[in-house]
């Protein structure tokens, strides 16, 4: 009888221990799985091989952002890190200041949206003197010690615009207005204009078009948008064709056409692509846009740096492809964009 009792007590205690242990383990597992486990600790990431800098005037500019993103992906393939200088800083530094930061931070190489200014030339020369190779992208500084230039041919760009304009040739001569930036130095606008004019002449189309240019003032913030809006509001007759030489002007014109109910009155050729521009082409608000292959430019930048680092020599110029997006192929672009968004 007593033995039976002892066994029963032993069984009860064992039952208690098992239940308590089970509850303990389940609770610990639940807590570790849901609560403590979700606190993300920054682990020591793997080391990178080289640290490169990307310097541009505005890190939020679609064109240069796209080039940076493509270059960064390319750099990651070689376990290199490409830093967009000034991107996370609270002060909005100028391009030159960013360039100075990159040089003083002692990076392994710099990709810079240059210009033909002396200050930029000095900075590039200083970097080169300190053993930092510099690749210019989009805009060049031909006088500097930069190792290579990755860009698109401004003349080629002009030719593309010229061929697009020529499609509208008729006996009745048409006014063509080319919106140019006030900051013409180094932006290749003159070469583009030359490309347009010479293309029209070469293809016997110059008599059908009256080319004029308008400089969009950018001396105040948001000045471009104000200037373009006032052009649409004005009582003067609108030109039959408008050519925009940068992304901001193109976007502003797209919006102004809708706001002032001028869709269909004017043929617009834009530059570069963003959601607004692509959507405007799809809805036939504007006719076409000439864009450059930013993915190719980003890749060329890193290839140029890599080539120079490994051999000490590199091609002086890497030309990127120029594409025309019109109503015929805008669908593919929009689909590609949607897939990218879904993938992200």
């Amino acid at each position: 009888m007593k033995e039976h009792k002892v066994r029963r007590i032993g069984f009860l205690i064992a039952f208690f221990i098992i239940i308590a242990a089970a509850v303990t383990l389940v609770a610990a597992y639940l807590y570790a799985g849901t609560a403590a486990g979700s606190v993300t600790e920054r682990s020591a990431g793997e080391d990178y091989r080289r640290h490169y800098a990307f310097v541009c005037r505005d890190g939020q500019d679609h064109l240069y952002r796209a080039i940076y993103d493509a270059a960064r992906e390319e750099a990651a393939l070689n376990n290199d890190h490409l830093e967009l200088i000034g991107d996370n800083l609270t002060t909005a530094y100028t391009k030159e200041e960013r360039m100075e930061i990159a040089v003083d931070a002692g990076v392994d190489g710099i990709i810079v949206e240059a210009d033909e200014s002396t200050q930029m030339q000095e900075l590039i020369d200083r970097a080169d003197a300190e053993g930092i190779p510099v690749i210019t992208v989009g805009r060049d500084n031909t006088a500097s010690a930069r190792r290579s230039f990755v860009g698109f041919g401004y003349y080629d760009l002009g030719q593309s615009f010229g061929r697009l304009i020529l499609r509208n040739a008729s006996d009745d001569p048409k006014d063509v207005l080319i919106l140019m930036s006030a900051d013409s130095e180094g932006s290749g606008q003159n070469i583009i204009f030359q490309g347009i004019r010479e293309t029209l002449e070469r293809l016997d189309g110059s008599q059908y078009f009256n080319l004029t240019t308008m400089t969009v003032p950018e001396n105040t913030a948001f000045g471009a948008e104000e200037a373009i809006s006032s052009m649409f509001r004005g009582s003067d007759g609108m030109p039959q064709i408008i050519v925009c030489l940068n992304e901001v002007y193109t976007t502003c014109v797209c919006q102004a056409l809708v706001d002032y109910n001028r869709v269909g009155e004017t043929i617009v050729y834009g530059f570069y692509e963003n959601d607004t521009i692509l959507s405007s082409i799809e809805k036939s608000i504007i006719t076409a846009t000439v864009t450059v292959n930013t993915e190719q430019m980003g890749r060329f930048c890193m290839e140029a740096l890599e080539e120079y680092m490994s051999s000490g020599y590199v091609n002086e110029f890497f030309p990127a492809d120029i594409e025309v997006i019109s109503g015929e192929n805008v669908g593919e672009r929009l689909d590609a964009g949607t897939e990218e968004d879904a993938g992200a």
Partner: protein
Amino acid sequence: MRSAEKKTRKPVSVQSRLVLLVTLSSLAIIAVNILLFININRSMEGLNRAYATNLLIGELSGSLKEVESSMTDYLNTKSTEAIERYFDAEQEYRDRLAALSEAESDRESRVVLTDIVNLSESWLEVTSETIRAKRGRVVDRYNTTYERAERLYGYINDYIYSFNSEQFAYNSGNYVILSGSFRRLEYVTMFVMAAVAFVDVLVTLILTKNILDPVRQREIMMETHLKDAELKYLQAQVNPHFLFNTLNAGAQLAMLERADKTSVFIQNMAAFFRYKLKRGDSETTLADEIGLVDNYVYILNVRFSGEILFDKQIDESCTGIPVPGMILQPIVENAVNYGIRNVDHEKRIRLEVVREEDTVRVRVRDNGAGMSAERIEEVLTGNAGINPVMKDSNGVGLMNVMARMRLYYGVEDVLHITSPGEGQGTMVELILPAPREEEPEPAGDGADADGGKEKNAHV
């Protein structure tokens, strides 16, 4: 023998079991909490490491300002104190830079830290150059380098500020997660406590049920009630030993003086008080109980001039059965006090002991005041409001008798009260289980052992 038994019981004592149980449950709860706190500490350590970089950066920022201000001070005053401050600050800044270079961080943070370190080294070079130019009094030179140093100082400050802001935003995110995690921890802990407490109670219930089994519980309650009865009995009788001895002396004196009636009376009195003394434990026989009633009625008859007519009809085969002590006399006492005391007609009390199937019925009938059905119900349910210790009562009430009988026999149906109505007498019936036929029946002390024959007696 008894000590040996105690020794074998000791390992499974109630105290040991409860201590074991409480210890186990406490250990379980402590184990749960330790596990949970280990997890929290791990999370907190992660955050602390992140904040450690912030701390280093903060210290670096302090040194940075000190280098800059001492350099500016030196350029302004060219004082020895300023140059000493500059060198101290520069050394301190370099030390902090070295510490920061070694700080563990993810890739993005490390890029920023590398920028800060490299920019700082460039800046220190420029400040040193500025100081050298100042010492050499090359004014143009140090003006130019000072401007550059100030620009670099601005960049570094901006980097530090941005890095701290980014880290703060990141850590704030983790703080929100941790805060939620602590909330969940509360729920988990409460769940564990509740679960362990539930099992704890369950096991305790099973264990204590094992310890206090019903038989033992019944024994304990029997003892309690008996003690209660004994206490009241003793309170009523003051000192039975003294009384008994004194009464014996009185009986002998009466005999010597040839006062026979007095002698018998005193002997009955002595027998009445002896009853309690003779009985060493709580159990007695029905015969003894009947003998006590005889003594009691004799005493009352002397007191009330023989006006109580008491007769008995006893099945002698039943008198040997064991019964709890002091169950019959209180019934007779009640019959006298509440039944016949105040009636004008002839006062009769009849005691019957009969066997009916497997029970023995002990009935006390009186021809007194009688009881209404409501009154009977009140008495049986204990709501009668009668003072259990009456002025001249032994003080052992009906409820006490019923309670002891129920505990002793383990059945509820032990006592009936019947009355045709007020003024028509009352019958109280005790129901005792009959002894089995094959069992030998011990003869009672105070009853005639005529075996099976009914006997009528009149006192």
